């Protein structure tokens, strides 16, 4: 049974004369986990706050569980929000923090006690219930903030970068907790982040926001695999996708992309017919580049400038050697540990681009030339 939990349509928001959101659509089915990503200042928090009711829309409508809430204050929207700074009530104990919303709604004490116990067990807060927020570590505070949302059993959970104040190890741990909780509670969640891993792993649905508009939406892996625009391609993935300015060259039956010292075949069925001489940006992710030879065709030669050895793999930074004078392109290449160890700075390494994972973007519109991505 699917039921639309959140439907935000044509959301426009301006602060004074400064347009922040320019017609954004976001919708979630019950039980879905939606993630909003985008560069800093693109309006993610603003969108979330609009959904929460903390900010008014300039135009557009918001429905939560089939009810138009555009004009309603936060308290009537049946949502819960976890803030980046946690925003715990400093003068209340953990227990009181958890119970605050329920107490305001005159929930019977027995029910409150039950839900607080439940939530604190879920989050491992049992021993901390009588402490004040300042007596907690950052991770504990984060869990209290989540607990405060959980006990309310809202129609919609909103998270605004809830993990950004935690260290890397804890972040990985809590990330898993959040997703597990979401599934256990059969919750509907809208989650804002600018962390690549969170964006990829947490959500069922991803929106990439840029300049006040949704650049692309879809399942995270789909978006990652088939970025519709150059911006999305460059934004998602770490390290970033390599970009090379190329022109289309026809050579016999095959079509090649050539430029900045790169010359690599383009699998024609995927891109359809590309006009000769057409200018484009070629994108290839670091892990889709391999060392040439052993049946892999040479795409370019890399002058190694720097090697990041991470143990199980290595990132090799360098530039292409170009003889045509368009200048060289910077590239990052992922190699397995074995190969990575052998590469030395100043060495010239022959590389091959995996044709199946080549992305091409129109030079002017920056839209993908990939048929499937453009559909």
């Amino acid at each position: 049974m699917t039921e639309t939990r959140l439907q935000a349509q044509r959301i426009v928001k301006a602060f004074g004369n400064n347009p922040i959101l320019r017609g954004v659509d976001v919708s979630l089915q019950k039980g879905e986990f939606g993630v909003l990503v985008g560069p800093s200042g693109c309006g993610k928090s603003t969108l979330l706050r609009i959904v929460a009711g903390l900010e008014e829309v300039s135009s557009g409508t918001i429905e939560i569980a089939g009810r138009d809430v555009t004009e309603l204050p936060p308290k009537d929207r049946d949502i819960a929000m976890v803030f980046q700074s946690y925003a715990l009530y400093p003068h209340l104990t953990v227990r009181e923090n958890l119970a605050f919303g329920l107490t305001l709604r005159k929930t019977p004490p027995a029910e409150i006690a039950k839900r607080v116990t439940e939530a604190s067990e879920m989050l491992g807060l049992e021993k901390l219930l009588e402490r004040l927020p300042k007596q907690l570590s950052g991770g504990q505070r984060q869990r209290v903030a989540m607990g405060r949302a959980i006990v309310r059993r809202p129609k919609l959970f909103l998270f605004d970068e809830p993990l950004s104040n935690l260290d890397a190890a804890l972040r990985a741990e809590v990330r898993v907790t959040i997703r597990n909780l979401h599934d256990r509670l059969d919750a509907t969640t809208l989650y804002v982040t600018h962390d690549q891993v969170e964006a990829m792993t947490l959500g069922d649905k991803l929106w990439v926001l840029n300049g006040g508009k949704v650049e692309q939406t879809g399942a995270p892996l789909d978006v990652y695999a088939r970025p519709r625009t150059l911006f999305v391609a460059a934004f998602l993935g770490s390290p970033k996708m390599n970009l090379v300015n190329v022109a289309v060259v026809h050579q016999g039956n095959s079509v090649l992309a050539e430029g900045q010292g790169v010359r690599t075949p383009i699998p024609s069925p995927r891109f359809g017919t590309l006009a000769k001489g057409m200018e484009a940006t070629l994108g290839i992710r670091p892990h889709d580049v391999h060392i040439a030879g052993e049946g892999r065709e040479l795409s370019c030669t890399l002058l190694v400038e720097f090697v990041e050895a991470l143990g199980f793999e290595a990132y090799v930074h360098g530039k292409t050697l170009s003889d045509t004078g368009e200048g060289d392109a910077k590239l990052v290449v992922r190699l397995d540990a074995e190969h990575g160890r052998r590469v030395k700075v100043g060495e010239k390494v022959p590389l091959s681009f995996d044709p199946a994972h080549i992305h091409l973007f129109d030079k002017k519109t920056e839209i993908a030339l990939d048929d499937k991505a453009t559909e």
Partner: protein
Amino acid sequence: MIRALLLAAFAVLLVSLGAGCGEGPTKIVFWHAYRGDEEAALIKLTKDYEAEHKVTVELLSVPFDAYAAKLEAAVPHAHGPDAFIDAHERLGSHLQNKLVAPIGDALPEKDVASFEPVSMKAITIANVRYAVPLSEKCIALYLNEDLVPKTPRTIEELAALPVPKGSYPIVYEAGTPFYHAPFLSAFGAGMLTADGQFGMVGPGAEDSLRLVAGWQKNGLLPEEPSGALVKELFSTGKANAAISGPWLAGDLGSMKFRVEPLPLVGKTGQRMRPLLTVEGAFLTPGGSKREDVRAFVRYLGGKQASIVRATVGKQVVANKQAWEEPALQKDNVLLAFHAAAKDAEPMPTSTAMRATWVPAQEAIRKVLRGDAEPKAALEEARARFLDALKPPPPPPSPTPLFLVCGLVLAGLAFLMVKRVREPGFRAELRRGRGAYAYVLHAAAIVLLLVVLPLVVGALTSFFAGTRDQPQYVGLSNYTSILTARGGDLLGHGSFYLTLLVTVLWTICNIALHVGIGVLLGVLLSRQWLKLRAIYRVLLIIPWAVPNYVTSLAWKGMFHRQFGAINAILKALGAEPVSFFSHWSTAFAANVATNVWLGFPFMMVVTLGALTSIPKEVLEAAEVDGATRWQRFRHVTLPLLLPNMLPAVVLGTVWTFNMFNVVFLVSGGEPDGTTDILVSEAYRWAFTRNSQYGYAAAYAVIIMGLLFVMTRMLGRLTPKDVEKGEH
């Protein structure tokens, strides 16, 4: 560096010594408290004298309020004047403090006859003359020429003249003993008896009060009349007659009026004799030894100088010969006051006189309000007079004091020795030398300006009697205060009653300050409020105005007949309220004034404290379902109040000691019941026979109370609440 400083100091010393003895006895230092015409006349006389004789006269005009204090401070150390002008009633106190010497040949026997006898009487004590009488000041009857063409024979007839509604047959400061004194005299009583006892007792004094209370009851007198009100009513033709001094004439402009001596009281057939103040030129002990000083003083009282003082200075001069001058014979006002003075009663010079004013005033006002029968009120006044003059207890043995001081000193010495003996102390001292150099001057200043006065004040509280003859009384000031002077523990003026009032006063004020301040602060912090900056400035204004100005303005607004508040009540159809006749309304008037003065501070503190509450916490509450009120009640307020605690402590101390408002608005009315501890302490020091030691004991107790209170309030800080978390 240090040598240069020493040299400079030495040079300054030399110069000042040179200035001190170089010019020698040709310079006369002369003090006065005159202003305006009187000062102009004195300056003219001095110039003339300097031109004629080869002397310099250095005139110094000292503000009236500080006059006595300055004299007392300067004369005994020979820094003061050689001679000075003062009112004769201070003579008793000046003698006690050895500020004056007999007048000697500045007023030779042969000249005595040329002065008004009454003024001679005023400056004479035990057949010794102490001043050259210069001028006489007393009150008289002003009559509106148009309304009262013919002077009635008695005051009763004057009071019975018909007047239109809103007008009065007679206006004067009825609640002030100085103005009631003429009535007393007509009934054969006085403020003080010849042997220095409270004179306002007995059937005569009671009848005098009955007479004016009857007028008040029948609406013949305006209510709560002040000098300003008397002037206003008389000058606008709303009063047939006024009883006032020469100062009123200057404010009447072109109005047609005449001045006459006070009339008879019909009931006794006796004339009303006002209190007379004779201003005389006094010689200090140093000045009296100098021929040139005596000559100058003699000149001031002489015929020619008197004519100048009368014509230029508008003084009612005490020299009879001057009045033969034709120019003086034309000035009717001056003549009238001269006539009035002939019949007046010189103010007693005894120091006991000062202790009569407050009890007498309280009694008169009580009777005028109809709160007490004259007999009871006067008996009570006499008891208060006696209480104020109660001689200090016999000096106890000072041994306990020495013992305690000795023990404290020994303890300090022990601690010091212990500290010095500690290993490493010297090294530490050496290391800290630089730091000590930095704080040394600050420490010295604090010691000088804060600690020392505090210690001196505390020591004063072990003494009774005047400043020059302090008498060690041990802790008896304290026991006397704490046992309510042997009276009822919650009786009139008892420490505990005053404390109760003070505590109530503080609580009411702080509650309202914080309540209103927080409310306005929160309102002003709201984004949607337009013109916030303007409101903020407007609301801070009450704080920026000096509090005594505000207090006086509010006192005027609370006036029974002419105040703005009663005007509003009247417009609303309510009965006017005599704010200062009932404890509750007088107290409320004080509180209202002080709330007006105090809320802006709390508002500003609130505005500051609000910024320390993270916005997201409020938003979290909003998402959690809190209404605007719930957010305020459950989040803003609990986070705000701990931050306001320091301000509340400060405000508590200020309010607890808010002398100006209490003193200026209600002035303790009715009957001293709205006084707080500090204003009570003030009364002991300045209106009850200068009992500085007693007042100092009050001050020490107040300090102790505040100390304890501050500590208690400090305990309240919830240690576990913090401003925000990040």
